[in-house]
């Protein structure tokens, strides 16, 4: 075992980094373990204009500032690690990594966030970066003058579809339901755009092509009919799912695989707290994740005092 910490935080998105700032500032020895890139979904956001006190910034920049703040208070951060096992019961909690290292702490804050849903259909891996994209801001200009599809029916899908019309000749939105789950203004803007078409009540079944994406197979759900649509690009925006698979038997999850917490962010396991996109809530914003991380850290601090 390498070290024993007061607080161990799993995840380095907005909730995890905030918990790290508060916990290390309270002079608890604090370790953040993170399986992905630091910043979580913040770095997937190009521009953040509604974070109070910060006029306008980019997601990676806000994440870097939070990371710097946490480190300056003495928080240790290990990112891009691969976690093998969690032991969350008892007074000392342990995390084992695939490389053999082990870390332990008196309390744990789970902030693993969420991950973009993938379609898991044939061709998705093959054409990632060769026609399939998950970021309109990053890759939109590769599709100038081309016909593309946008998969999804939420705010991201509709807003990005409109944004992609700056480049693409024609954008077809494909959505599984007969209605959208987006804000009215986003729906109106997409519906009023002359170069956006809609295929409703339909799901993708396959991506096909040669060296790059050339067409998609789409099933019309009510009839079961499969049609082929020629597109050179497909942007996938079908939402996020909580990253909680590893905690299934360790803390209580709800039917949507979110970690159930009380108002102080206590999970069902004593000394284990949860924050951010992994817990049930209606609004998932950087600001709400920051609030969750704050509460979890303060609750963990109170738990340590009572030990």
């Amino acid at each position, binding site marked *: 075992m390498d070290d024993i910490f007061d607080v161990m935080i799993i995840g380095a998105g907005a909730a995890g980094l905030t918990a790290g700032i508060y916990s290390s500032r309270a002079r608890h020895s604090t370790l953040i373990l993170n399986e*992905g*890139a*630091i*910043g979580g979904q913040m*770095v*997937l*956001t*190009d521009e953040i204009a509604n974070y109070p006190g910060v006029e306008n910034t*980019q*997601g*990676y920049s806000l994440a*870097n500032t939070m990371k710097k703040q946490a480190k300056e208070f003495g928080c240790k951060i290990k*990112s*891009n690690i*691969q976690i093998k096992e969690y032991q969350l019961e008892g007074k000392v909690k342990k995390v084992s990594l695939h490389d053999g290292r082990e870390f332990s702490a008196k309390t744990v804050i789970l902030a693993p966030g969420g991950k973009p849903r993938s379609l898991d259909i044939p061709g998705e891996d093959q054409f*990632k*970066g*060769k*026609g*399939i*994209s*998950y*970021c309109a*801001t*990053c*890759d939109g200009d*590769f*599709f100038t003058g081309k016909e593309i599809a946008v998969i999804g029916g939420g705010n991201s899908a509709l807003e990005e579809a409109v944004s992609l019309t700056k480049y693409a000749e024609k954008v077809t939105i494909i959505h599984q339901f007969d209605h959208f789950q987006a804000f009215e203004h986003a729906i109106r803007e997409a519906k009023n755009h002359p170069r956006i078409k809609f295929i409703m009540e339909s799901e993708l079944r396959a991506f096909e092509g040669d*060296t*790059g994406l050339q067409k998609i197979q789409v099933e019309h759900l009510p009839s079961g009919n499969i049609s082929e649509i020629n597109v*050179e*690009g497909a942007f996938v925006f079908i939402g996020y799912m909580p990253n909680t698979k590893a905690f299934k038997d360790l803390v209580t999850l709800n039917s949507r695989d979110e970690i159930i917490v009380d108002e102080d962010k206590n999970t069902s396991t004593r000394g284990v707290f949860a924050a951010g996109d992994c817990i049930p809530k209606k609004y998932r914003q950087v600001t709400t994740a920051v609030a969750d991380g704050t509460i979890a850290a303060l609750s963990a601090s109170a738990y340590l005092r009572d030990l």
Partner: protein
Amino acid sequence: MKLLQTNLQEVETAAELDKMIKENDNVMVCCGRMGPMCIPVYDIMEELEDERSKVKFAVMAFDSPEAGIIRDAKECRSFMGLPFTMYYKNGVVTAATSSIQNRSQVMSIIDEKLCN
């Protein structure tokens, strides 16, 4: 002028990249922007700098005219997602990827194609 805010060496010209490839047996260059698909790859590279000392890690700004050496490379002809990442062994392109990659994908290319 450096355009990417990373802790990695930024290659600014095609000649500089050429020199790096000639002087180092194993080179990984990530050509991108400061965007959400690129930053996670830079992050992984920064960490691997300590762990894979036989590999030279560098970044190059995608929008620099000099980055044509990567953008227009035949290995990237079908690429339509940032970043474009090139792996060179003994001066030759041994692997190239398009779009975001996770740590295990990057490690497996490094271990199989560069440090084999």
